[in-house]
């Protein structure tokens, strides 16, 4: 669990900033393998959910045009240091992962 995700949540004043990098090939399905010349099947993250203390604060839907090894950052109010932030993803081949961190003050 969480091996594909680097997750950080930092509190600055009243604002929490979440930054995450996910290890994923994000294949569009349109790229040709340089050796075989065949199309590499589509394999990309479709859903991302971020929860604060178990409640969603950000959800996203992605297509194949999000870069390989996706980076994402966003901000929210109303959390405090030590609160739990989880980020999970699901791809088009039913692969998934999630990671948890505590907000650093």
């Amino acid at each position, binding site marked *: 669990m969480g091996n594909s995700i680097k997750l950080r949540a930092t509190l600055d004043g009243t*604002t929490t900033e979440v930054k995450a990098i996910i290890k994923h090939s994000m294949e*569009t399905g*349109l*790229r*040709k*393998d*340089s050796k075989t010349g065949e199309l*590499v099947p589509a394999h990309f993250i*479709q*859903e991302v*959910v971020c*929860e*604060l203390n178990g409640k*969603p*604060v*950000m*959800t*996203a*839907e*992605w*297509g*194949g*045009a*999000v*870069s*390989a090894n*996706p*980076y*994402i*950052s*966003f*901000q*929210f*109010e*109303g*959390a405090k240091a030590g609160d739990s932030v989880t980020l999970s993803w699901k791809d088009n081949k039913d692969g998934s992962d999630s990671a948890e961190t505590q907000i650093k003050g």
Partner: protein
Amino acid sequence: MKRRVFLKGGLATSTLAIAMGAGLIAPRVLLAAWPKDAFEAKNVQDALKNLYGGDLTEPSDKISIKVPEIAENGGQVPVTVSSTLDKVQTISIIVEKNGTPLAASFHLTDASLPTISTRIKMGQTSNVIAAVKAGDGKVYSARKEVKVTIGGCGG
């Protein structure tokens, strides 16, 4: 012999019950189905129509798109969209000239600040469009051109 079978059956049933119970205790976040039609749309209008139910957006200067003027690597183009519109619900990032323009949609909550950063792929020089659904239910948009030296969609 029969008793064994019965016990086994009973065990399987209770395992299932526990699994279901666990599911109830920690329900997975319910997401609307991934909007396949919007992501597979071949032009901006169809993507918007499938995403927001209408292909018209109101140009707004309350949306800012931060992108590089020139992207040497179209495979990793950093994009930050932020907005001063009221109660932003959704921010979608669309690349006008990509084969399938919709790249991503982010749904925010009341606690969210209306800003999101990510990296996207661009096949060629194109406008990057940010479509933002605000609290009044309207969809606003802004665009900014990125010149791409090496495309990030082919092989």
